[in-house]
């Protein structure tokens, strides 16, 4: 009878899955469990205390508010950059295309000090700006924009490339102008990808640390981001406080991850249904 025979044809399933799961458990799951355990072990009163602290609230407002602003800016300019890279040709296009990934490859601390040097009041860009950027919340947003650039561009580029030229030609043959065609044909097609890119940019920015702390100013209640607050609490040995803030941040991060995955799923289904 056929029962009891190994169900896999290609060999190596058990060892590879086993190893992968073991690695994941050791490196990811157990440490995260420690966080969850600690967070769960704190009383509700403690939670409330930490989370209604004015300083904590200000930090969350800056981290998430700034990340949202940066993500939207990246959405706009990322779409523009993707459009220019895909549709137009100009000398050095390939070089520019390669450079897009710089924030991805450049260590965050390096980005941090470089941006500070540029946007400081005496810096190359800072000296020409009417408002002070470095050491203010605005500086935080600038750093968040920097690290989020590749996400929108890289998510939108392939979709833009795949937009069937025939669709646009059909629109033109029916009398649509180029701006109309862009708004009514192209934009809906890249919409989901754009949304995904913005979410990814947001997710990256709200947790970012290294690129921001140099340019931020780090004044509690004004220009202090949540990760810095966590580090400060750790340095003061307030493990409980640090854990509470970290747990909250994780909750929001996971919600974002779920949202992005659902978004991508919806995007795929929509495209699948349409094709």
């Amino acid at each position, binding site marked *: 009878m056929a029962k009891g025979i190994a169900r896999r044809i290609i060999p190596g399933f058990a060892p*590879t899955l086993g190893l992968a799961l073991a690695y994941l458990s050791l490196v990811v799951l157990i440490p995260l469990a420690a966080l969850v355990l600690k967070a769960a072990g704190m009383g509700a009163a403690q939670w409330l205390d930490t989370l209604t602290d004015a300083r904590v609230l200000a930090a969350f407002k800056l981290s998430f508010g700034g990340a949202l602003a940066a993500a939207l800016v990246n959405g706009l300019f990322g779409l523009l950059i993707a459009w220019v890279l895909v549709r137009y040709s100009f000398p050095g296009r390939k070089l520019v295309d390669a450079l897009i990934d710089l924030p991805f490859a450049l260590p965050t601390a390096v980005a941090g000090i470089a941006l500070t040097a540029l946007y400081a009041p005496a810096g190359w860009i800072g000296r020409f700006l009417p408002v002070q950027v470095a050491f203010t919340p605005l500086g935080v947003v600038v750093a968040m924009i920097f690290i989020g650039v590749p996400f929108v561009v890289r998510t939108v580029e392939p979709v833009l490339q795949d937009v069937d030229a025939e669709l646009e030609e059909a629109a*033109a043959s029916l009398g649509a102008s180029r701006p109309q065609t862009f708004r009514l044909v192209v934009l809906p097609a890249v919409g989901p990808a754009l949304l995904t890119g913005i979410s990814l940019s947001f997710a990256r920015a709200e947790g970012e640390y290294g690129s921001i702390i140099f340019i931020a100013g780090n004044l509690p209640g004004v220009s202090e981001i949540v990760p810095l607050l966590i580090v400060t609490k750790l340095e003061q040995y307030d493990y409980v406080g640090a854990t509470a803030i970290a747990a909250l941040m994780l909750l929001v991060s996971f919600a974002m991850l779920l949202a992005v995955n659902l978004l991508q799923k919806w995007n795929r289904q929509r495209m699948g249904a349409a094709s």
Partner: protein
Amino acid sequence: MNRAALKDPAWVRWSLTALALTFLLAFLALPLAAVLTEALRKGVGAYAASLGGEDTLAAIRLTLIVAAIAVPLNLIFGLCASWAIAKFDFAGKAWLVSLIDLPFSVSPVISGLIYVLLFGAQGLFGEALRDHGVRIVFAVPGIVLATIFVTFPFVARELIPLMEQQGRDEEEAALTLGAGGLRTFLSVTLPNVKWGLLYGVLLCNARAMGEFGAVSVVSGHIRGLTNTMPLHVEILYNEYDFVGAFAVASLLAVLALVTLGAKSALEWWHRDELAAAARH
């Protein structure tokens, strides 16, 4: 292919391009230039001197050691995970893939915090470790762990879509011809994914060497002992040794550029063999 109906008027093309390039200049190109300029502000001599300092050399050494441990381990994990995910069907596969994406949605600081909570003095295993004289947090092992956490997805994320795209036919064919599992993997699968593998390793390495937030939390910042290059940059900067800070930063920037260059080269020459080209 002359798609005349799709050509935007020249002034539109030029202004949009100019706008895009200005944005990129302000946000990408200039920071890069700033690193070099600031590093060389006091001349090449000062630049070379700051790179030769003892603490700086120790930081460079530690960064290399951490990468040398983290990257191969993540490579093995990546190969195992992608083999299990791409060549088999099993319940919970989607969860596994999401789990692999986890570090991307966790703030680096939290990535470091969890190890402090686990192995720190007040942590879950704090007492046990102290009794055995083992130091993880505020020592090199902690740095390696935090680095692994932050960088383990890179190889796997590169290989999984690539191997899924390539399917199982070739492996099945090898089986019908009498090859065993390991032989199939080495002769058939590995050669097919070699460029994707290299790509993933490059990204993993760049991130491992450049990680700041996670390592900052676990390291204890002990100069000469538990300082990696990015941490050293921060120390020098906070001491107003700007030339020193930017000098070390320039090394990391060069690493980033080399990574970008290799990445682009791989993408141009091996488009078909990189899932990234399709998914990116």
